[in-house]
């Protein structure tokens, strides 16, 4: 069979290029070798370091327990790759099957994996973002710089944005006994990810640990002194706070600009791909040789109405990388779907937070075990009468049960009796997410033309 012959050749002597030499890229490379790929493997990464782990950056590294250069990812096996580190991919030619690099060279591939992840959204005012003392936290270098500054004992730290990263940074500051102000546009910390019912618990944690938490406000400006050092922040409610350090934790932007004009369906919300991790082009047709994994991917999940999900989750990157790598070098009928149930963890203020499923799709929440007041609980999220997600605060051992419930589309509210069910957990309440009908991103794809023959898909990066 001709097809099989060429697949055999690909596995034996093909060229596979991975762009993005971090978690997803490394795990994919390992899987490729594990599954018998013996051809040329090229790893392209714009950071100068070998793949390292990011979750410790906002936890152990900032605390000073682990140096930033001790976060290299453990290798599960040798991958015998050609490493092109410290050089970014700048373009993709789909028909020539070639990736252009920042140093002017290019690399040809038979199969390409894109795992370029995301980067921190910077402070929008460039001048203010350039003040000495203004930081973001995504990379090893970011962490080294911020840690150094925290160690110097600034008079006050301002954290802008109380999502997971912002909350973890605030927690670290308190553990280092630094005064910290957290400014959050939403009604509570974590409200975007977990809703304001759980967000209220998070707010209590902030208060209990002495964080100056200001919700429902935006930072409108950062003010420097004559020497260009950050001095003060201004808030939308007219308030100000004096701070020497500000950490901008306003979420992330997908690293897809380098794909502009390539024809791939790549934009600010990621690169759309099918459940088998094959990238879509802007017409919605799969590009057979291009695969996507990790934070940069956006893939449909059958469990959640085939909605395209982009997840910034460590576990997702690992699982998706394995599926992508497998599918890159196998026959069509052996391909596997990436049916990962979203799963996330965080550590802040001494509490271990975990979630499974897609909380922000939910309309209701119920505390199925434990109690919000004790800050130890398991809560289930419901969407139109079915369980769609769960979150635990220091009760991670129940999470797997809820994962099964989600995977089985079990009814919500959970009708059964369990251990540690309290009175407060008998009735569901609104989960408290921001109104989803208010769009947060502009449209990306529009369809034009009247008759079927001249219908066109137009792609507009927002």
């Amino acid at each position, binding site marked *: 069979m001709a097809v099989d012959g060429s697949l055999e050749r690909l596995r034996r002597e093909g060229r596979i290029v991975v762009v993005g030499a971090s978690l997803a890229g490394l795990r994919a490379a390992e899987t490729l070798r594990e599954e018998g790929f013996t051809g040329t493997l090229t790893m392209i990464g714009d950071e100068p370091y070998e793949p390292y782990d990011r979750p410790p950056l906002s936890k152990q590294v900032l605390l000073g327990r682990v140096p930033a250069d001790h976060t290299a990812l453990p290798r599960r096996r040798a991958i015998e790759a050609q490493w092109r580190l410290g050089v970014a991919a700048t373009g993709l030619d789909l028909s020539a099957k070639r990736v252009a690099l920042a140093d002017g060279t290019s690399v040809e591939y038979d199969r390409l994996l894109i795992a370029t992840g995301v980067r921190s959204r910077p402070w929008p005012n460039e001048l203010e973002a350039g003040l000495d003392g203004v930081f973001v936290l995504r990379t090893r270098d970011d962490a080294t710089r911020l840690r150094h500054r925290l160690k110097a004992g600034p008079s006050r730290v301002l954290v802008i944005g109380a999502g997971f990263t912002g909350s973890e940074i605030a927690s670290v500051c308190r553990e280092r006994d630094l005064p910290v102000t957290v400014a959050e546009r939403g009604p509570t910390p974590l409200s975007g990810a977990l809703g304001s019912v759980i967000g209220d618990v998070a707010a209590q944690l902030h208060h209990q640990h002495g964080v100056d938490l200001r919700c429902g406000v935006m930072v409108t400006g950062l003010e420097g002194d004559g020497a260009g050092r950050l001095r003060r922040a201004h808030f939308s409610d007219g308030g100000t706070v004096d701070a020497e350090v500000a950490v901008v934790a306003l979420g992330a932007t997908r690293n897809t600009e380098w794909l502009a004009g390539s024809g791939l369906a790549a934009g600010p919300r990621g690169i759309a791909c099918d459940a088998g991790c094959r990238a879509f082009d802007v017409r919605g047709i799969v590009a057979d040789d291009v695969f996507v994994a990790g934070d940069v991917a956006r893939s449909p999940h059958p469990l959640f109405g085939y909605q395209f999900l982009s997840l910034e989750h460590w576990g997702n990157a690992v699982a998706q990388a394995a599926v992508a790598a497998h599918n890159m070098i196998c026959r069509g009928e052996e391909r596997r779907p990436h049916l990962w149930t979203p799963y996330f963890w965080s550590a802040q203020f001494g509490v271990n937070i975990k979630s499974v499923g897609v909380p922000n799709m939910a309309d209701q929440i119920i505390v199925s075990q*434990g109690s919000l007041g004790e800050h130890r609980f398991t809560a289930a999220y419901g969407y139109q009468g079915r369980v769609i997600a769960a979150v635990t605060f220091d009760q991670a051992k129940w999470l797997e*049960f809820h994962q099964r419930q989600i995977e089985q589309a079990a009814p919500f509210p959970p009708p059964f009796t369990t*251990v540690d069910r309290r009175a407060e957990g008998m009735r569901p309440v609104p989960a408290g997410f921001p109104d989803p009908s208010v769009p947060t991103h502009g449209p990306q794809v529009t369809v034009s033309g009247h008759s079927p023959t001249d219908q066109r898909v137009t792609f507009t990066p927002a």
Partner: protein
Amino acid sequence: MTSVALLGQILDHANRADPYPLYAELRRTPVVRDESGPYLVSTYWEIHSLLRDPRVSSDIRNLAPEAKTGPGTEDPDLPPSFIRLDPPDHDRLRRLIMRTYGPPHSPRRVYGLHGEISGIVSGLIDRFQGRGQIDLVDDFSYPFPVTVICRLLGVPQEDEQRFHGWADTVATAIEPPVGTPEEQEAHWRSIREAHHQLAGYLSGLIEQRRRAPREDMISALATDRGADENPMSLPEMLSNLTLLLIAGHETTVNLITNGMLTLLRHPDTLKQLRTDPDLVIPLVEELLRFEPPVQLLPERTTLDDIEIAGTTIPQGASLWLVPASGNRDPQRFPEPDRFIPDRPDNQHFGFGSGIHNCIGSPLARLEAQTALAELVRRLDNPRLVEDPPPYRHNAALRGPQHLPIAFDGLSR
């Protein structure tokens, strides 16, 4: 659903030496009701999921009185220990114990015993000098863990002898009753008496350590203010310390004895361990899968109907999980009946799983690793005198009553 009559056979002492064919038969139907009443669950994934199912209760007070397997190891005058409770009570007690026993608050508690454990092991083996045969149980596996527990808790060396006596007696409550009604009554009386003496002794020790704390676990428990929750009351301390004592006693004995038995049945592995002592780390994991000291987990109750593997276990049922059978489930472990000392991906149920996952596991691992590596290193040409050896009565905590081993000499 049909019911089976396998439990009687599993409990029958005649099958103690090799219960695994019975488990294999049980696994043909993952969930069955035994004719004697309880629901038996024997396959890996079903056990895995029930151990994490919040509808399953371990609270002894939820158990129908007729479902209790015996008078139990607990002092009826004290509150239940944490393994016989559900959250939130279970969680609170477990947290308070963990604060004094493990990370993050006491990360060095177990590791700190490293040197002492090696010393105790060497001391016990030194006493084999000049003998050609030992009973591993009486001469080693039994005295070893109690001595370790005494050091961990902070029982003074001069009291260890008395302490051993009470511990032995209290632990016999695990065995099913034998003999005439009068003999059984006398048996329970002696157990109650030992309970009371042990409780009295521990109260005294707790009081002493409260006044003059040392580096041990009783001092830590007695002086712990519990961070943001109520610290343990004295009765809670007594029942949970008794539990730690019994649990640390009855299981490690079997782990080590089963370990030597398995090694002597697999001479190639024994030889391999001699030349590569690091093999002991995965080997102990495989042992925990292959011959787990805790074979059955009885005394759980369903708080609601639970549908699993096509069967509905009704609310209020008595539920028996059979982790030793799950450990040999071919759906989970390739070649489950082979002992593969460096088996990859070995997520066994040797220490249970879920919220009641054994807190003693780091200590038990360290004890078994140290003991087996050292026994194998020092005994010259060890061999089994009797195979199978005589087994103890208990089916849940299964292990040899004696394990005679002959050997040619002792290395230094």
